[in-house]
């Protein structure tokens, strides 16, 4: 695990043996590319209103048609990916960092602290996520930052629990005990031994968490509780489409496809990564 080159080669050879994982990887790469290149690829400004051409079907000028304000749906879908990308990047990395910290604290700290933290994790998880999100939005008003905050809070326990379990398991291992006996500090043990050992499961968890995070953002934006108009998000495109469902099916078709592609791509890719790096996790899943 020390040589990054070996790591990439290992992943690649594992992916080549798993067609579904490879398909997921390709799908994820395509979507990432399209999203990052959105400003150059989008044929129109996603906010450009054209009332003379409302709710039109696909044409040479507008490949996916236009919405109720005559905005180009293809451009909105491409830019919508940037919202999804931003939310998942920010939410997952912050949740992972805090989860890592709290999980290691629970795993290595005194017993009472472990108890308190575990009850805390369970409390947060005891709210059904969507209800929790709605309740928070009811209090603070709709905004993308609220969505990110909710996802962070509800995801922390997921990461923290994995880190805690792994840290506790490592704590009893001989090589850690030996380091301890030689007088290594807790910080050193965490940095040199615990961190490298939990990095792989953590990243696999993150890649499998992307569909849930993207789905959550889209879901809240669909309910009108996420991004504020006129910003395009896959969820808000679906929301617009839902309101004008009987006039044109295209906004719904176009807003749904990237969501399905992202969730499938990351799930297949994540499952494949898990099988490559941690066959043990697979048996636990059963």
């Amino acid at each position: 695990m020390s040589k990054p080159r070996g790591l990439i080669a290992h992943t690649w050879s594992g992916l080549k043996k798993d067609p579904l994982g490879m398909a997921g990887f390709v799908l994820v790469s395509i979507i990432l590319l399209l999203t990052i290149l959105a400003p150059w690829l989008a044929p129109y400004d996603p906010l450009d209103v054209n009332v003379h051409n409302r709710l039109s079907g696909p044409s040479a000028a507008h490949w996916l048609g236009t919405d109720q304000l005559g905005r180009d749906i293809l451009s909105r879908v491409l830019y919508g990916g940037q919202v999804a990308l931003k939310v998942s990047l920010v939410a997952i990395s912050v949740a992972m960092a805090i989860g890592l910290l709290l999980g290691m604290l629970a795993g290595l700290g005194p017993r009472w602290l472990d108890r308190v933290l575990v009850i805390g994790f369970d409390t947060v998880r005891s709210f059904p996520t969507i209800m929790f999100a709605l309740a928070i939005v009811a209090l603070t008003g709709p905004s993308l930052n609220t969505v990110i905050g909710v996802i962070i809070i509800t995801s922390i326990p997921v990461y923290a629990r994995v880190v805690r379990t792994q840290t506790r398991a490592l704590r009893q291992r001989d090589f850690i005990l030996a380091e301890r006996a030689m007088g290594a500090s807790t910080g050193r043990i965490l940095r040199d031994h615990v961190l490298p050992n939990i990095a792989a499961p953590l990243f696999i968890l993150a890649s499998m968490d992307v569909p849930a995070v993207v789905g959550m953002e889209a879901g809240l934006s669909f309910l009108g509780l996420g991004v504020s108009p006129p910003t395009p998000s896959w969820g808000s495109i679906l929301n617009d489409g839902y309101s004008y469902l009987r006039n044109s099916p295209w906004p719904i078709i176009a807003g749904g496809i990237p969501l399905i592609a992202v969730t499938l791509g990351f799930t297949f890719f994540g499952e494949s990564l898990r099988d490559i790096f941690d066959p043990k996790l697979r048996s636990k899943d059963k």
Partner: protein
Amino acid sequence: MLRFIVRRGLLSLLILFLAVSLMFGMIHMVPGDPATVMLGPKATPEMKAEFSRRLGLDQPLAVQLGRFYAGLARGDLGEDPFTNREVTVIVWEQLPYTLVLVLVAIGGASLLGIPLGCFSAIRRNSLLDRLTAVMSVAFIAIPSFVVALYLLLWLAVKWRWFPAMGAGESGNLADQAHHLVLPAIALGLGWVGYIARMVRASMLEVMEENHIRTARAFGLPERTVIVHYALRIAMLPTVTILGMGIGTMLSGALFAEIVFSRPGIGKLLYEAVLTRNYPIVMGSVLVTTGFFVLSTLASDIINAMLDPRLRERQGSGE
């Protein structure tokens, strides 16, 4: 065993208590006073004062929280400030719609998922097995509201096979069932694959066991061995998952209810959020969270009854 149940039950109560208090605290931390938020900018100071007094908002937070729990113990969740109706009555009116939807969804998912998982285990690595494996992962991943929207678009609006809105005429069972189909599919689709996976995994485990070998050695027909001996045991872990599923689905039903304009707890909460109707928000969150915690508790206990090893592990906080 009893000790485990009591300890696990107390922990659930503690978690529920923390969750509700947290929720209550957050409502009162909201910037601006709730009376202004709920009554709107045109309310006079007298109206606001009267409103605050009626909801008990002029008391300190601890007193309000105490009153809330005292009310809760009597089964009283307060009043809807807009209609003056009791929150419990409103929640009870909506709950059956959601419960029926959830039960139909999970029932349908089991009817499909159990045979699928069973066949996959018996015909391991067959085309059906591999197809089920891919589909189950796929269906779990796709957000349910996207499924709901596509179903609405094609089966209700375009082909008109199913109604697009509402829960059907009251008293007309056939009509209500007709209205249930699409929301139930949207809610249950992801569970088909989940259940199939569970059944497959536990079937594979059970099929290796001695009593199955004995049954076969006695020359019982393969069908009898599978249905009467293997599946019956393999079903146990699946049943606990189903229990937990009901709790999760109660909140997941929200999207199906909104897309198909069905009454229910999810829709109630959503509308309360939009109008900042805090007592209703509090009531519906409490009911769904309560169901969620209880169903997790129930499936933990059933699991522990089935598997003493798990009981040990959970008792030590793993």
